[in-house]
């Protein structure tokens, strides 16, 4: 059985959302960071609207202020880093055709032409209509299951990935 997913391209917002969801799935402990983040955001809000001035707090608790600034900037740094990554990847910037069959996956695009056997993949993660196929720790192929050429369905793709010995999460 051969399944074709033509002209797949992931835009930056989708890439950011999928990267975040993937990170939280692989490292659930990251969610712990949300607690200090929310606390600092809340105290930053209280500081800006309340009676104490920023200068007073800076004098009393300079390290706390530094932490607050860091936590305020954290989302900005995160989005900036992901944007840099996205712009540096010719694979993400160009549309690619994916062909899946019993032996593996072929990727056809202007950035690269490659045939990968199933044992090259370490895991697959499904988020809604997207499937992330990983061949290394840092990067993945982004498959848009809504673009599968009929008559194949997303269930067929998942079946094929599983029969290739790749665990789907």
């Amino acid at each position, binding site marked *: 059985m051969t399944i074709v997913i033509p002209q797949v391209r992931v835009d930056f917002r989708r890439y950011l959302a999928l990267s975040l969801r993937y990170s939280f799935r692989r490292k659930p402990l990251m969610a712990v960071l949300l607690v200090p983040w929310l606390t600092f955001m809340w105290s930053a809000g209280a500081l800006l609207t309340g009676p104490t001035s920023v200068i007073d707090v800076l004098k009393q608790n300079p*390290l706390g202020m530094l932490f607050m600034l860091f936590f305020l900037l954290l989302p900005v740094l995160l989005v900036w880093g992901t944007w*840099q*990554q996205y712009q*540096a*990847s*010719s*694979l*993400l910037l160009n549309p690619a055709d994916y062909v899946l069959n019993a032996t593996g996956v072929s990727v056809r695009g*202007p*950035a*690269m*032409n*490659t*045939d*990968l*056997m199933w*044992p*090259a993949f*370490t895991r697959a993660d499904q988020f809604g209509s997207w499937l992330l196929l990983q*061949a*290394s*720790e*840092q*990067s993945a192929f982004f498959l848009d299951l809504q673009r599968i050429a009929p008559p194949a369905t997303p269930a067929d793709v998942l079946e094929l990935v599983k029969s290739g010995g790749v665990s789907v999460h």
Partner: protein
Amino acid sequence: MEPIILADVRMSRADFVAINWPIIVRKRGWINMLLMSGVVVYLFWSDGFYESGYWLYQAGITLAVLAAMAILLGYLYRRAINKQYDSTPLMQQPATYRLSVAGIEKTSSLQRLELPWASCQGVRRLGRWYFLVTGPQRGEFLDPARLEAPATEADLRALLTQQGLTFL
């Protein structure tokens, strides 16, 4: 120009650690140690640890805490590098590279790859290896020790430069 062939290129675990260790130290190690030292000294200072007592004792305790942190950090980095190697089957397989003016062809038991030169953002020298950068944290490792005669390392460098790749 004849294509340049590198046969049975294989990255061993030791090679991978040797390549990545200096990079991770340079990129994250120093800055993390600096930040952590700052926090440790600040915590000791705000706790009144430096106000009274013998200075050698204070310095000794501070350095001991920092040394323990450095060892822990180093252990975590090494573990991360090893994990990265283990989770990349593609890298563990021997591969043959064929470089010509048309581009790069890679063949291994797990992968067949055709890469136009335009997809390479540059080349980085890592120890004896040439690392062709193709994306963020992605690329191909070329081992000049696996060059097939009569091609030499000078030929390889000449081809990379001729294709407009800059050494990063």
